[in-house]
Structures are given as structure tokens and as C-alpha cells.
């Protein structure tokens, strides 16, 4: 039969400090737990955090090389104009989807002369990229980057990604995933209006 031991406990010396320590300890744990819960409760799912970029506000990295047609081109050649740098690959579905949008953007702005579209291959062989353009049209300069070093310099994680570079050479925005002509036009318009 269980025997209540309370009588024995009462005959002992109880250091009063012990009880206080226990209370303080539980209090501390309670506070920490509450803090942790409040932090956890206010987080967004991790998938939403993907579109920031380190490059925004900084000068665009060196973006130069040989295009699919064999010419040498560099983003610096176009200083003074908006440059849209688009990383793509021929096998990527969102790239195929955004291609007409890019073509339309290119057509408009090449005529106006205020913005230039430059493509850069990412994980894509030059022949495949040429075939891509042959199939889907478009003739803006596309830098062939077999080692993806330009991609790494920009922090490209996955194609397609598009970076918009202002006339003064700084990166203004990164678009992860497919981009539309409205996105690009809207961004440029907003920047041109806003006082620098």
C-alpha cells in the first residue's frame, strides 16, 4: 500500500531558497516560451522570402561576354539607358512563357532607345539557346555564359530571373520567376517619375 511520506518531509529542514529557485526557473522558461511562440506565430512561410536581392542599390556586376552571334557586348556599353538583364534557359517552362513578354518589351524600347534587353544563358548550352531563339523569335543580344559565372555574380538561384539596371548602373529590382512587360514598364515608369 502506498504510504504517505508527507510526515517525513515535514520533519526535514527545507531550504526556502530551493522553492524560490524553482519558481524563478519556471518563470524564466515561461517567458522564453512565450517569446518563442510570439516569434513563431508571426512568421511568413519560407517560400515567400525568396525574392529579395543583395544587389539592389549596388552597381551591377560586370556583365560582359560573347553573344550567341559572336559579338562582344557589355552592360557598361549601355550606361545611360535602362538595361534589363534576363537569365534564362531553353528547357525552362516559365522562360518559354515569359519570352513573348520580353520580345514585346524589346520591340518597344529598342525603337524608343531608352531601354535595352540583354539575355544571359544559365545552365544552357549555346546551341540549345540558339535553337530556342530560332523557335520562339527575338534578336536581342544574349551572352553565352557556359560556366554560369555571370549568374553567380548576380546571385541567380534558378531560372528565370530578371534584373533591372538603372541608367546610372545600379541594380534596381530583381524579378524571380517569369516577368511580364507590364512589370518592367511599370517599374521603369515609377522610377522615372520619382525624384531621385
Amino acid at each position: 500500500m502506498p504510504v504517505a511520506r508527507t510526515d517525513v518531509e515535514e520533519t526535514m529542514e527545507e531550504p526556502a531558497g530551493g522553492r524560490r529557485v524553482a519558481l524563478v526557473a519556471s518563470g524564466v522558461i515561461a517567458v522564453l516560451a512565450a517569446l518563442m511562440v510570439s516569434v513563431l506565430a508571426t512568421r511568413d512561410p519560407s517560400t515567400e522570402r525568396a525574392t529579395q536581392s543583395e544587389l539592389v542599390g549596388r552597381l551591377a556586376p560586370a556583365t560582359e561576354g560573347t553573344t550567341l552571334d559572336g559579338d562582344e557586348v557589355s552592360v557598361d556599353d549601355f550606361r545611360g539607358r535602362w538595361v534589363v538583364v534576363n537569365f534564362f534557359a531553353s528547357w525552362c517552362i516559365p522562360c518559354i512563357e515569359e519570352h513573348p513578354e520580353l520580345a514585346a518589351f524589346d520591340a518597344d524600347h529598342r525603337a524608343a532607345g531608352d531601354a535595352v534587353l540583354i539575355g544571359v544563358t544559365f545552365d544552357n548550352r549555346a546551341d540549345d539557346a540558339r535553337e530556342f531563339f530560332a523557335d520562339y523569335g527575338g534578336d536581342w543580344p544574349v551572352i553565352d555564359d557556359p560556366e554560369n559565372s555571370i549568374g553567380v555574380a548576380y546571385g541567380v538561384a534558378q531560372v528565370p530571373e530578371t534584373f533591372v539596371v538603372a541608367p546610372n548602373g545600379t541594380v534596381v529590382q530583381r524579378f524571380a520567376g517569369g516577368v511580364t512587360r507590364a512589370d518592367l514598364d511599370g517599374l521603369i515608369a515609377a522610377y522615372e517619375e520619382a525624384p531621385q
Partner: protein
Amino acid sequence: MSARFRRVSWVVIASVVLISLVRGSIDDGPPRTTEEQVQVIASTMKCPICGGQSVADSDVAASRAIRLEIASLVEEGRSSSEVRSAISDAYGERVQLIPPSSGFAGLVWILPVVAMIVALGALSAAFARWRRAPVSAATDEDRALVEQALDRR
């Protein structure tokens, strides 16, 4: 085994262990080939889209490209921390698997150490207090209980 043999044993054991440990902690030196260095650095960087794998382990295009970049930087003679900063310049701090030791993030290193020190300190204090506290004497009631239990056996 006699007590004296045991004592001698312990001395021998202690010496062997100490010498071996000292010898064993002297490292071979930093990794030699470029491939090894790239491996080491890449294992401290996170693949940007893989949900947690390191650049060394993952095979997606971005990881392979980053490994190539690391290799070329290493061949230029940059140190590991320079290489890591170069990559995080483009991809962001979050691509470093080792949290920085300064700033707020430094807390993640300090807190466990502090917690351990506090815990061990509390343990020693508790042990010291208990050793000083008097052990209760057995009451007659206790003795009766023990007698009962021993009889029942």
C-alpha cells in the same frame, strides 16, 4: 588484480592517453588540393534553392556554378573567408551555413556556452549545498518499516 597493479595501470593509462591525445590533436594541416579546399568551403555554403542542402552536396545548376566560382577564387589565392564573403555578396548572408559570430547572430554561439556555464555552476553549487546539509536520521517509524519489509521477505 591487486591495488598496486591497479595504481600503476592508471598511471600508464593516463600517460598513454595524454600523449596520444596531444599527438592526435595536432592537425595534418589545412586541405591541400584545390578540390579539397573547394569541398570544405562549399560545405559551409547553402544551396540557394534546395531547401537546406549545402553547395557541396547539391547538384543543381546554381550549386555547380557556385562551386566553379569558388574554385576560381581559390586558385586566385583568396582565403576561405574572402571566398565566402564574395559569394554572400551576391546571394546574401543566408547562404552561409555558419552563422556569423558578431552582431545579433553571435548570440546563437554565445547563448549555449553561457547556458552550459550557468548549468554547471548551478550543479556545483547544488552539490556543495547538499553535502553541507545534514542527512536526516532514521526515525523509529522508519526502522519499523524496514524490519517489516525484511521479515516479509
